[in-house]
């Protein structure tokens, strides 16, 4: 090849360019996340399994199950894994700017592209794990999901909620750095108030109403109904969750836009 001879690029539309950039970032995320070690992947799989196993063992030891003939292990695994997805998207996504500083030297890579690629990757990984759980339950324990499409929607919703929140947190961290330290505790504190290990139908109506402020509660209740059908009595409203998704995502995108001019790039 002659050194004056360069690969030429074809003209492409704005949208096509953006999609191509997100694709490139996604590939890179895949390489950096799993190219060097697979421990992260194993942990994502092992942690919810371990936790579900522990709690169902405790239930078994104490001599009573969840009732209504629900499979104890799957009940906890199904409650926890979508929450794991929410938590890891928020925790990883919040760090998106610091982790990708060197990529911002390419002008057609925006903060939104970075956030989408990173969170999409995380959502894909977690969805794979959840699919694995559901498949194992279906094949080995004959627990077929009641409404698979709704379950899929539930996962998408929890990913989109996390995406919006992570963008918002990433942006706010640019304005107030110590916020970074609060994300982990925040996601942990979310766990008991997100209906991961219990159903709203087990609670008195006052606490039920209070918990229903949290959009994740709706998502988890919906997921449970989508999996177990009429053995559970769910409390959820899809429009309410969609409002939260819209709000968080708009705020998150506006935040990233505002944060962009505050970022000083260093190597």
């Amino acid at each position, binding site marked *: *090849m002659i*050194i*004056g001879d*360069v*690969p*030429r*690029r*074809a003209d*492409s539309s704005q949208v096509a*360019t953006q999609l*191509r*950039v997100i*694709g*490139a970032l996604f*590939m*890179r995320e895949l*390489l*950096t996340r799993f*190219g*060097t070690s697979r421990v992260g992947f194993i942990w994502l799989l092992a942690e919810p399994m371990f936790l579900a196993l522990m709690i169902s063992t405790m239930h078994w030891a104490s001599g009573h199950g969840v009732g209504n003939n629900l499979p104890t292990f799957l009940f906890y695994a199904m409650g926890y894994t979508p929450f794991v997805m929410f938590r890891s998207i928020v925790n990883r996504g919040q760090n998106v700017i610091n982790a990708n500083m*060197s*990529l*911002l*030297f*390419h*002008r*057609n*890579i925006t903060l939104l592209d970075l956030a989408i690629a990173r969170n999409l990757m995380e959502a894909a990984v977690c969805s794979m794990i959840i699919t694995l759980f559901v498949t194992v339950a279906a094949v080995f324990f004959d627990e077929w999901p009641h409404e698979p499409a709704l379950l899929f929607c539930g996962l998408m919703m929890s990913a989109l909620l996390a995406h919006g929140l992570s963008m918002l947190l990433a942006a706010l961290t640019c304005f107030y750095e110590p916020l970074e330290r609060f994300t982990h505790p925040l996601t942990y504190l979310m766990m008991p108030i997100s209906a991961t290990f219990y159903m709203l139908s087990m609670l008195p109506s006052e606490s039920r109403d209070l918990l229903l402020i949290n959009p994740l509660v709706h998502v988890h209740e919906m997921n449970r109904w989508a999996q177990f059908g009429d053995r559970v009595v769910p409390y959820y409203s899809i429009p309410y969750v969609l409002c939260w998704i819209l709000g968080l995502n708009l705020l998150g995108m506006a935040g990233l836009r505002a944060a*962009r*001019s505050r*970022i*000083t*790039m260093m*190597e």
Partner: protein
Amino acid sequence: MLELDNVWKSFETKQGMKQVLRGANARIRRGEHVGILGRNGAGKSTLLKIIAGVERPTVGKVRCTMRMSWPLGGSFGIQTSLTGAANARFIARVYGTPVRETEEFVEDFSELGHYFREPVKTYSSGMTSRLMMALSFSVDFDCYLVDETLSTGDARFADKCRAVFDMRRANAGILMVSHNPLHVKKYCNSAAILRNGMLEFYEDVDEAITAYQGL
């Protein structure tokens, strides 16, 4: 055409606001080779990042109709945990050049041998800058923004970079910032001095160098 119109840039520091650029103006035409001289801390890199469109000026406007490269220096825009080859594919996807062709071009041009398939963090600084120049030449930019990087490769590689610039002179320019007058003399036809956050242009490189050395 690239135009800077009264560009100001300030940063928040622990000791209050720091003004780095205070009304820089410039007009650079396609294919021009311009050097910008400035002492350490004069704001050269900041200026380059603003021209590249990756940082926004606090006040003022940047108008640009050319396709600018990213600022070439250090390991800007390179992902050090990935291999040279993975970086080449990444650049191809981000800028929309054909992936295989780009990878071959970069492998060929950078002369990294088997290191091309090793992570960039194992490279020496000379090797990193060879990869950097190869990556940037693999995309048909109209203007290459160079942050003193050409100096780190050995003399033969620097000559090769010059040859590329000479060959593409008709449609590709350079905008180089440096504190070293020799680099500017080697690559540029006109020069400016960045001082007190403002740009002073000189038609003649030697004239600029004399003025710069008199600072």
